[in-house]
């Protein structure tokens, strides 16, 4: 990517433009190329979503337009473009129009720091991880603006719900991202990916993924990322089957499509960030010999994550709002804080790297074990309480759940 902008820069310099102007043009073209990847990606993502969900529900899914129904999303986008742009009476026009743009803007900026292959990164910022965290806050602001400016009580309430969920899950997510950052000692995403190599006799297997070192952190990140991207089981913000919609209830046509786009892209990019932090990014066997393999490894991992999210979407029930909040604050936050503390202690106390490795891994496994144990007994007790309160006496002591009268 750097070579391309370099050659463009030289070309512009040859045309007689001043150096600063040609720098700006070269950077702008690079940014445009990266940014236009996102909408094309969204078309693919929506197609994957529909296909996976259809298969789970024993349907075929889109199969009429284009090969395998690939062009269905294009047709849908055209339909949305031709729709009337309805604006609610007394809506606050500026914030109403700005909110969808802002929500997409915040997500697309993520592309800049995604490391696709060795050296292929838009901008390897030295504050890469922090930058990603800061971008998340733009989406929250967009949801608030959309909810308020629609001049609709339900949209406003939904906006509050969005902020409550996103703020709650941002904390465990950010703290889980700290795990790899602490281990590598850098916030550069390129460097974090490079650190996940596994050299055996000078040959890079590319399998030193941080998920093996800190499975607990990776799990916490994935759960929080599900909540951040508003996917099942945390999709109570926009429970498609029973509520009309969330904060974007008053939006229609292309403005609605932009919220939709932002959500799909956000899901994908949160998965891609997870891949870079915990699943080795572009690392894999033979990647040192053939760097182009890195692109395939990265895309395969990122899309595998997306399919996993859709699998969860097709199979899991939704959590209640009180369960959602208490899970974030009473389970995830204390767990991730104790893991961070343990990792810091382990990295300072134990000298040899292998000992640190074992200590961090053991800490993660033990912590997860304890939490799963506690949660299991909690839910068992809750079931017993439910049966005592409502169910017939014969159900107590059995594994059979109380199904209602």
């Amino acid at each position, binding site marked *: 990517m750097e070579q391309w902008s370099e050659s463009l820069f030289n070309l512009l310099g040859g045309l007689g433009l001043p150096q600063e102007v040609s720098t700006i043009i070269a950077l702008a073209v690079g940014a445009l190329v990266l940014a236009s990847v996102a909408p094309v990606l969204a078309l693919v993502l929506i197609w994957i979503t529909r296909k996976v969900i259809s298969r789970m529900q024993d349907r075929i899914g889109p199969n009429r337009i284009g090969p395998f129904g690939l062009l269905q999303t294009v047709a849908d986008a055209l339909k949305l473009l031709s729709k009337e742009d309805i604006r609610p009476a007394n809506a606050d026009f500026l914030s109403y129009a700005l909110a969808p743009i802002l929500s997409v803007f915040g997500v697309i900026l993520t592309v800049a720091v995604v490391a696709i292959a060795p050296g292929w990164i838009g901008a390897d910022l*030295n504050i890469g991880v922090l930058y990603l965290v800061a971008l998340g806050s733009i989406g*929250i*602001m967009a949801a608030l603006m959309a909810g308020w400016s629609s001049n609709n009580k339900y949209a406003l309430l939904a906006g509050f719900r969005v902020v409550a969920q996103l703020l709650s899950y941002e904390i465990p997510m950010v703290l889980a991202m700290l795990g790899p950052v602490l281990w590598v000692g850098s916030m550069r995403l390129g460097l974090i990916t490079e650190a996940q190599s596994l050299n055996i006799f000078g040959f890079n297997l590319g399998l030193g993924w941080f998920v093996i070192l800190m499975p607990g952190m990776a799990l916490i990140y994935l759960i929080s990322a599900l909540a951040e991207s508003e996917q099942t089981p945390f999709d109570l913000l926009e429970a498609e089957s029973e509520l009309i919609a969330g904060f974007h209830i008053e939006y229609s046509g292309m403005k609605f499509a932009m919220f939709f786009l932002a959500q799909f892209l956000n899901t994908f990019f949160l998965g891609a960030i997870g891949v870079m932090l915990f699943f080795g990014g572009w690392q894999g066997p033979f990647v040192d010999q053939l760097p182009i393999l890195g692109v395939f490894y990265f895309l395969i991992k990122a899309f595998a994550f997306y399919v996993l999210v859709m699998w969860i979407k097709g199979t899991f029930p939704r959590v209640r709002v009180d369960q959602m909040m208490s899970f974030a604050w009473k389970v995830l936050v204390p767990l991730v804080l104790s893991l961070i503390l343990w990792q810091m202690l382990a990295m300072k106390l134990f000298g040899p790297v292998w000992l640190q490795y074992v200590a961090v891994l053991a800490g993660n496994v033990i912590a997860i074990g304890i939490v799963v144990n506690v949660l299991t007994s909690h839910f068992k007790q809750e079931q017993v309480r439910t049966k005592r309160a409502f169910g017939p006496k014969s159900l107590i002591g059995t594994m059979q759940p109380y199904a209602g009268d």
Partner: protein
Amino acid sequence: MIEQLNQLIEQLLIQTAPTVPSIQQVVFVMLAIPAAVAALMVVLARNLFHSALALVGTLFAVAGIYALLEAEFLAVSQILVYVGAISTLITFAIMLTRGMMYGATSPLNRQAGTAIMIMGLLFAVLSGLVASMPWPENLVALETFSWGIFSNRITGEAIIASLGQKFLTTYLVPFELMAVLLLVALAGAILLARDRQ
């Protein structure tokens, strides 16, 4: 002070008039004008929600100026803390106070005169400070600047590392005090919000 200001303006005019502005200057103007306009909107908007949004805009533009000054960490922290947390909190508070949401409120109240006076004084002091500062002419002069702040300029990744080290060595007490303050605020919030039985 007015003489100094005049001198500064003259100097600026002499410096900028014959030459083409550099890209940094163009970008600075592109950031500074929105920041100033949005800051004016914060105090002059008739709708409180618009004020809050304008505040977000100002903070964004200021973050851009930080990025222009190669203080990326500060810029991103500004967006993270002010746009992400504090502005959301302010917006929440505004939204939850009924009657302030819709309809116009006057931006002026009894304290307008006092506020204008204090702000005028503050502006005078700050511009005097800027005018009296012996600014270095170029980057080479900046490196050897006798003021002390710029004398050991560090860049890139080292900024974050030295920031962390300073927090845990030189500025340990304020850092820990800040943490305790946050804890107190958290406990206070819980105390205020819990059920009274």
